[in-house]
C-alpha cells in the first residue's frame, strides 16, 4: 500500500494516507486532481473496479470543515488492494465533474448523490431524472440537517399508542427498579 502511495504522491498532491487494513487505505485529494488520479489508478495500477461512490456529510465539524466528503473506492482484484480517494466539497451549490465516461455505472451513483445529497453532476446522463424519491419537497434527505423523525411526524399520520423509550433509563428501571 505504501509503495502505491509513494508512486501516487509523486504525481498528485495527495493528503495523508489513512491505512485502515493491510489492504484498504484512504487518502484525500484536491478536486482538480481526482480525474487524473482515477485514470492513473485504472489504467496504470490495475484498479479497474469501481466499488462504490458515495458521500459523507460532515455538517457538525465546525465552520471550516463543514463540507461533503466524496469517496471513490477502487479495487485491484489481482492484488486484493482497495484504495479510497476522498474529495472534499463545499456543502452549498456543489457541482462535481462526472466520471460516467470512465465507468458507465457511475452514472447511477451520481444520480443517487444528486437526489439524496444535492451534489450536482451536470454532465452525468439522466442525472436530473427522479431516481428513488418522487415528488420530494424538502431538502435532500441524506443531508445531516434533514430531520427524518420530524418529517415523518409532520407528513404521516401516526397511529396512537406507540411508545419510544430512552434505552438507558429503560434498562435502569428494568434492572434496578426503584433506584433512579
Amino acid at each position, binding site marked *: 500500500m505504501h509503495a502505491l502511495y509513494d508512486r501516487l504522491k509523486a504525481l498528485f498532491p495527495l493528503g495523508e494516507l489513512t491505512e485502515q487494513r493491510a489492504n484498504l487505505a484512504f487518502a484525500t485529494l484536491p478536486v482538480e486532481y481526482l480525474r487524473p488520479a482515477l485514470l492513473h489508478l485504472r489504467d496504470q495500477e490495475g484498479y479497474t473496479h469501481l466499488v462504490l461512490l458515495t458521500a459523507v456529510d460532515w455538517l457538525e465539524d465546525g465552520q471550516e470543515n463543514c463540507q461533503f466528503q466524496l469517496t471513490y473506492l477502487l479495487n485491484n482484484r489481482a492484488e486484493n488492494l482497495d484504495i479510497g480517494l476522498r474529495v472534499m466539497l463545499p456543502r452549498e451549490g456543489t457541482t462535481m465533474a462526472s466520471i460516467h465516461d470512465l465507468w458507465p455505472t457511475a452514472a447511477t451513483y451520481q444520480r443517487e448523490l444528486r437526489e439524496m445529497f444535492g451534489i450536482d453532476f451536470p454532465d452525468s446522463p439522466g442525472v436530473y431524472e427522479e431516481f*428513488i*424519491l*418522487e*415528488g*420530494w*419537497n*424538502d431538502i435532500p*434527505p441524506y443531508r445531516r440537517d*434533514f430531520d*427524518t*423523525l420530524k*418529517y*415523518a411526524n409532520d*407528513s*404521516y*399520520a*401516526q*397511529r396512537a*399508542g*406507540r411508545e419510544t423509550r430512552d434505552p438507558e433509563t429503560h434498562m435502569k428501571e428494568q434492572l434496578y427498579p426503584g433506584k433512579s
Partner: protein
Amino acid sequence: MKPELLKRMVKGPDGVEFEVEPMRDYYCDAPPTVQHGAYIKIVEDFFNWARAESLWILGFGTGCGAIEMRPLMTPRFDAYRYGIQWRPTPRQANLLVISGYLSTKTLKRAIRAYEQMQSPKYVVGLGSCTINGGMYWDSYNTIKCLDQYMPVDLYITGCMPRPEALLAGFEDLKKLIRAGKAEGANQYAERFDWYKANQKQVIHDWDMPDYNW
C-alpha cells in the same frame, strides 16, 4: 412539469390531429359509488360464499412480505387448497395484499391498482409496518397507517408474518366475507373525499406514468 405532460395537439398515425391532455386521467373522472348487494339475502349470502371461496390475490409484491407469498403457494403451505390464487392483473383480482411497508411511490401505484379492482374488493395489510410503521416508524418515505389511505379489512401482524399466520389470516378474512362484513369498497366510496385528502397529503406528485392499467 415535463414537456410531454403538457396539453398539446398531436397528429396520429392516420393523419388526424387531436388534442391530448396527459394530466387528465381519462378513466377516473367518476368517483366510485356505493354498490349494493343483491336484494334477496340468500342470493347475497350465496355470492358471499363464492367470494370467500375464491380469493384472487393481485400479484403485486409491495414490500418484503412478498417473500413469504411464494412459500405460501408452494408445496409446504399450498394456499391453492383454500381457493387462494394469484391473478396478474388488477381487473381480475379482488384481494390486494399490501405485503409490508409502503413507500409513497408504491402507495401511489397501490392506490391505482386498488381503484382498478372490481367491487367487492378486499385489502389485507401484512406486517407491523402497515399497522404503525413498525421498524420504519421514523422513516421519511414510508406511510405509517395503511388504513388512512385505503380501507383495510384485515391486518396480519409480525415482521414478517409467517405463512401459517397468512393462512390463518385468510381464513379470518373468509369469515368476514361470509358474514358480509368485508365492505371495504363501499367504505371507500362513502368516504372517498377523506381518503383522497389523506392520499394527497402524502403523495405530492400525482403525475402517473402512462401505465398499462
